[in-house]
């Protein structure tokens, strides 16, 4: 065989090794990422199998592309060099022999003879094997990792969420027939959890509907069991006996009896929560003028075990007065797959086509999202979102209801904001030592002009409420463009009156605030001036004061402060301009955060003349406040009494005291969970022969916490 052919054979072996290595690295990457995603998915419930394998396959593809680059290096020359490296006896004869120029020369024969006596197969095999060991190990580890990720129970994964926790009893506290007892708990099928075995259980907490089997070795002769007073069958099972039951909805105690003693096992059922549904779109109630278009609907749904389905429900109410008609339906229904699919979170989406509903003015659409879980034991649990209302306005309320569907007007981007002006002024002030006076004044005036434009915009907002002309401000200062003030054509006397009162408040003579909108604006300006120059004094604009001033007060403050800032900037004094600029910004922020109140209709108040009804003459009556009646809780008092009795018993018969406390805890789990939790810790301490004084004191505080002592019977009536 010629040297070239031998090199080609080695190259094929290397190519196969590269392919194998590439596949193994890719497999390792795919399975590792899948294992990681599986763990994340099981812990959070947010990643499904589809997403897991999509991400894993992408990772594998990336690894494939990264590894496959070795193919490009597999030229004949490189392979020959690779062989020379592992077979030094060749002394570069092989590299020379495969050179195309040498192959045709006379020395090719000599080289072939020299190479023919040297074999590199063993070295090549060893090198190839070494190259494959690491990817093979990685792929094997990834397989193991994935298997572990899919099988090992996680704390937040459904098997555990549906799963089981327990406390155990010390063998020395347990009568002989029950010493080696163990419990097997299997959550209901819909929860998808695995079977759990608990050695020597004292209490078992598991999902309602779980199968519980207690097993113990030995004969069942003389062993009896009951659950909350109801007898349970004690059956033979292999070398021992067993008691099987289903976890109910309420906490109960299994009482196992034998001539040598008895044993209690508390059952603490965990309820499967109903899905939590949050309607995200539409975000709020809406009034529309025209019943046209499409309203997008979205909702987030979550469940502790697994969702089955979800949908949007709507009810259309038509009519008024005493005559109403209703239509209902569902939209955007979606199946999630249930607990086995472990879809514990999801999203609903849909679209409400108003045209299709053929809505009339006055019609109301009530919308909500609903989701159901996989609970087949006590469910299905149904969760629903808040309800949103979409109403079509009647023609009679066009003037009183905001029915414009348009978005808010876009902000005027041609203006520099007050915050930006402050930043520019501060920057100018910092540069001041390095600037000539002329430059400083020039730049300061440029900022001043922007400040003036912003002030005029604020003025427009304030004065637009005064009349048709939104530009209520006169031109002031040399850099402002004066404009004609149109004469008011239909002055509103009521508005003038209120403005006149504002002027009076500001200390101006009434005559100054007189008969035209122009003078009214002047009065308003003076009122604003008084409002903002009063130092810390808070002016009261309530009562009979003009609402224009009251509503716009923060903006008026901003307006005045901006005016002051403009003046300082005009004079080339940025440092002196900054305080009023910041006051203006604060005022704008206050105006922005002001509370908006939307009034709703109120029912007419009818006052009954009680004296006339009772024919007793006038009686003024007295108003009296009252406090809510303290909740009477005799159950808590009974709990406290039983606790005291058990604590007394603890001195003489600790085992009996523990049993009493267990019974008390089981009965309190539903109605007083805090008390039950405190009691659980105390029971554990008593069982373990630890000092339980502090824990019992805590239990007593928990028992007494809900007790209140009143001075007498509360009255059930009162006035505001």
């Amino acid at each position, binding site marked *: 065989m010629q040297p070239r052919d031998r090199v080609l054979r080695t190259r094929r072996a290397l190519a196969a090794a590269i392919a194998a290595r590439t596949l193994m690295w890719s497999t390792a990457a795919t399975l590792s990422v899948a294992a990681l995603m599986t763990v994340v998915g099981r812990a959070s419930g947010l990643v499904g199998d589809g997403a897991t394998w999509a991400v894993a396959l992408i990772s594998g593809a990336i690894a494939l592309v990264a590894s496959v680059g070795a193919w490009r290096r597999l030229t004949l020359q490189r392979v020959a060099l690779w062989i020379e490296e592992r077979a030094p006896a060749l002394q570069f004869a092989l590299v020379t022999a495969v050179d195309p120029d040498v192959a045709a020369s006379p020395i090719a024969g000599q080289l072939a003879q020299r190479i023919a006596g040297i074999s590199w197969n063993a070295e090549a095999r060893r090198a190839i094997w070494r190259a494959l060991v690491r990817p093979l190990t990685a792929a094997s580890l990834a397989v193991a990792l994935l298997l572990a990720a899919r099988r090992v129970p996680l704390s937040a994964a459904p098997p555990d969420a549906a799963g089981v926790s327990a406390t155990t009893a010390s063998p020395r506290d347990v009568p002989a027939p029950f010493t080696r007892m163990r419990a097997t708990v299997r959550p209901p099928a819909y929860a998808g959890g695995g079977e759990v075995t608990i050695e020597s259980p004292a209490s078992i907490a598991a999902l309602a509907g779980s199968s519980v089997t207690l097993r113990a070795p030995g004969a069942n002769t003389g062993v009896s069991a009951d659950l909350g007073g109801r007898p349970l069958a004690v059956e033979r099972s292999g070398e021992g006996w067993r008691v099987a039951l289903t976890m109910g909805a309420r906490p109960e105690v299994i009482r196992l009896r034998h001539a040598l003693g008895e044993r209690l096992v508390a059952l603490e059922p965990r309820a499967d929560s109903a899905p939590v549904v949050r309607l995200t779109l539409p975000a709020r109630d809406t009034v529309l003028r025209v019943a046209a278009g499409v309203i997008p609907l979205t909702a987030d749904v979550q469940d502790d075990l697994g969702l089955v389905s979800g949908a949007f429900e709507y*009810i259309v*109410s038509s009519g008024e007065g*005493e005559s*109403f008609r*209703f239509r*209902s339906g569902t939209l955007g229904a979606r199946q999630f797959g249930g607990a086995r699919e472990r879809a514990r979170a999801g999203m609903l989406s849909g679209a409400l086509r108003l045209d299709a509903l053929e809505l009339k003015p006055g019609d*109301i659409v*009530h919308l*909500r999202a609903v989701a159901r879980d996989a609970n087949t034991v006590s469910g299905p649990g149904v969760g*629903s979102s*808040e*309800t949103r*209302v979409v109403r079509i306005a009647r023609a009679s309320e066009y003037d009183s209801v905001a029915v414009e569907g348009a978005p808010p007007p876009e902000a005027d981007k041609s203006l520099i904001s007050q915050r930006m002006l402050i930043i520019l002024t501060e920057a100018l002030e910092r540069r001041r030592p390095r600037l000539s006076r002329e430059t400083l004044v020039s730049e300061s005036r440029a900022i001043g002009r922007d400040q003036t434009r912003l002030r005029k915009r604020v003025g427009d907002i304030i004065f637009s409420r005064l009349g048709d002309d939104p530009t209520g401000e006169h031109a002031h200062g040399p850099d402002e463009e004066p404009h004609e003030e149109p004469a008011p054509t239909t002055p509103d006397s009521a508005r003038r009156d209120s403005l006149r009162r504002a002027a009076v408040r500001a200390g101006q003579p009434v005559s100054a605030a007189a008969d035209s909108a122009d003078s009214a604006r002047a009065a308003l300006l003076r009122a604003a001036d008084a409002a903002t120059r009063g130092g810390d004094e808070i002016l009261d604009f309530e009562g009979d004061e003009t609402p224009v001033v009251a509503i716009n007060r923060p903006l008026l403050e901003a307006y005045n402060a901006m005016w002051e800032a403009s003046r300082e900037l005009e004079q080339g004094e940025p440092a002196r301009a900054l305080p009023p600029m910041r006051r203006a910004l604060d005022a704008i922020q206050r105006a922005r955060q002001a509370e908006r109140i939307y009034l709703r*209709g*109120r*029912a*007419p*108040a*009818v*006052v*009954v*003349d*009680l004296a006339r*009804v*009772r024919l007793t003459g006038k009686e003024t*009556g007295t108003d*009296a406040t*009252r406090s*809510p*009646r303290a*909740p*009477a809780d005799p159950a808590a008092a009974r709990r406290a009494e039983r606790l005291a009795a058990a604590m007394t018993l603890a001195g003489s018969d600790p085992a009996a005291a523990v049993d009493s406390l267990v019974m008390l805890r089981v009965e309190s789990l539903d109605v007083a969970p805090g008390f039950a939790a405190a009691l659980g810790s105390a029971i554990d301490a008593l069982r373990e022969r630890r000092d339980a004084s502090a824990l019992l004191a805590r239990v007593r505080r928990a028992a007494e916490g809900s007790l209140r002592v009143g001075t007498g019977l509360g*009255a*059930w*009536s*009162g*006035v*505001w």
Partner: protein
Amino acid sequence: MSEFVFATAQYESGDWDSAPLVPANLIDSVARYTKLRVAPTGVIVSLASEDVFRFPLLFLTGHLPVRFTEAERTNVKRYADRGGMLFVDDHNHDIDGAFHKTAVEELARTVGPLAQLPNTHTLYSSFFRFPDGPPNTSHELNGWGDNLVHTHLLAAMRGDRIAVLYSNKDYSSEWGYHPDNKRFLSVDNTKFGVNVIVYALTR
């Protein structure tokens, strides 16, 4: 002793103010037939506010679907547990109507399922005697709405106490007139309202 104040429950989802004259009419009747101290005008109280706990009886009515907000749901449950009585009347008087379906669903979710109240219950003898159970309304007898005469009211109990009383009988329409017009009736049809109030104040 403080006086009784009639409170109308205001809820977010529907027309809670559909029977504005009922409070005055029942206040008039309480003043007319009993010696209870009663405020001359009712109040409106938001179901979502803590103020509900100031009143022993809340009156809730409307025509439109009832969907409590989370705050309303929490308050209604606490109110029922703490001794209050919520009187819900279907102003729509329609057995398959939106108010009935949604209100019953919402109440069942909030305070537990509603069951028929026996017509021998002390509610029907707490002041006036109603041996046949809840008095019928003219709307029922005229066949309006669901065309049924409802023989029972529904209730959710707390022990032996009515925590939520639910009516399909449309007392909101039956009692929705100005109290001055009571003199035109041969028999005052608001007497059962007095029973409800007296029951709420004494149990």
